[in-house]
């Protein structure tokens, strides 16, 4: 074979390898750029005062995001309380009944639910809860977010439990354990790291959701912990302030963006740690 054609192919191979490295690097760039830009714009705004105060009226200097921070925590907590038990139970059902008709349909619904645009889920929550209850409320926002969390919790629970060997379940049944004990004493503890990481990822996923909250939690300039009343949240605050004409409100939005970003980053890192630490060696 002629040397020239071999050299040409070696060159092509190296070129292809370089291209994959280049594109892998290109994936990191957007995240780094976002991090850099938001840290640069937001870091100077963040101090104790910023975290514990509510926003001041236009024209007054200062003010913080305490209402949005507390609001976000409450809305997400309530959403988790709704979505996590339902999601885990559904995941258990799907992994236990792989071939039943009900499993087929619920798996399909969950997959489709995952693809439903968040704004549509917001509208649904508006018609289901806000209109009948005659008022915006944090609870309706939590329900909308819970619907968004469900598919992630269900599928990660199902996938985790499917990976556990059947021999584990047989060992439990052979000791005379009833179904609920097999599930809660053996199967769930062995898959706990995967289930928890699914829960954490779903929380990270909904933390930044704005659309479902626009016509449910609505927003509130004051600090409140009443989930039947309108409540602020970080993404809503960012949306409102970033689209406002005032410069110091823009600054608040940058600070809030940084907080939100750190929240999501920490959740992701925490998830990785949990997965590693609580993994049951099979």
């Amino acid at each position: 074979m002629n040397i020239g054609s071999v050299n040409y192919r070696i060159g092509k191979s190296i070129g292809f390898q370089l291209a994959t490295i280049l594109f892998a690097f290109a994936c990191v760039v957007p995240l780094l750029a976002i991090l850099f830009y938001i840290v640069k714009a937001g870091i100077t705004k963040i101090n104790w005062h910023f975290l514990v105060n509510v926003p001041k009226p236009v024209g007054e200097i200062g003010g913080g995001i305490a209402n949005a921070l507390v609001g976000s925590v409450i809305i997400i907590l309530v959403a988790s309380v709704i979505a996590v038990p339902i999601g885990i139970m559904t995941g258990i059902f799907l992994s236990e009944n792989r071939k039943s008709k009900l499993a087929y349909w619920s798996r399909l619904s969950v997959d489709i639910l995952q693809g439903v645009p968040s704004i549509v889920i917001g509208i649904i929550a508006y018609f289901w809860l806000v209109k009948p209850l005659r008022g915006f409320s944090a609870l309706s926002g939590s329900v909308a977010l819970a619907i968004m969390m469900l598919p992630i919790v269900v599928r990660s629970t199902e996938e985790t439990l499917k990976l556990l060997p059947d021999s584990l379940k047989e060992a439990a049944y052979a000791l005379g354990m009833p179904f609920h004990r097999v599930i809660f004493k053996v199967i769930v503890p062995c898959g706990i790291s995967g289930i928890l990481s699914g829960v954490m990822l779903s929380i990270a996923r909904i933390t930044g959701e704005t659309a479902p909250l626009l016509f449910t939690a609505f927003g509130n300039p004051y600090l409140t912990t009443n989930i039947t009343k309108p409540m602020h949240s970080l993404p809503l605050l960012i949306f409102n302030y970033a689209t406002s004409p005032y410069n110091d409100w823009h600054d608040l939005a940058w600070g809030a963006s940084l907080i939100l970003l750190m929240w999501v980053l920490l959740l992701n890192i925490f998830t990785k740690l949990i997965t590693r630490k609580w993994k049951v060696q099979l």
Partner: protein
Amino acid sequence: MESTIVKDSVVIKSRDFNAYFGTNHVVKNVNIDIPRNQVVAVMGPSGCGKTTYLRCINRMHELIPGASSRGEMKINDEDIYEMHPIFVRLKIGMVFQRPNPFPNLSIYDNVIAGYKLNGIKLARTERDRIVEHSLTRVALWNEVKDSLNKKGSFLSGGQQQRLCIARAVAMEPEVLLFDEPTSALDPISTSTVEELFHELKTNYTLIIVTHNMQQAARVSDRTAFFYLGELVEYDETKTMFTNPKDNRTQNYITGRFS
């Protein structure tokens, strides 16, 4: 003691017992009497229904989707299929082909898993006694007594299998089922487990499925030979290996098919 009075009585009795996977008829009209405090080996080529038959005895067969069974299966003259499966499995312990200790539990907790995970409360001294007694029965106590708090998956394969036997023994069942208990073990672990069988039959009735004829000959008092879902022959192990009555048994033990 009850076991001395009824020493030769029948513990497990099957009459016209059949098992199916969907429409696939895998165990056909099996009639068998299993005497108390004996080791019974169930042998036969792959796919002959021996494991399925074993799993019917403690009703593990029905856990597989589409599986069903028909016929009579009794323990001490009580119909197993009229009892709740949980009671059946408390009376009839099982050890599987691959060691399957609970990976989330310590060695100690693995032994008393049948109590702990079933929510049966035991006093501390009682638990300690059961753990030591069960581990001693399976000749594992001396090897693990200093690492009882380590995870069960930390042990070697042979030790894990003995831990699984201890877990079954801890529940004080009447019958112990073994589904090819040594096929995933090395030769030394295998002989340790085989020695246990002689030891265990003083308190329990053992039914051992094996694809290994030599093992059947070494460990059992009686042997059942399954072929294509049928029970071809069931007799004293000595008689079976020296003077088989059926041609198929003869062919199998002389290695003409496997």
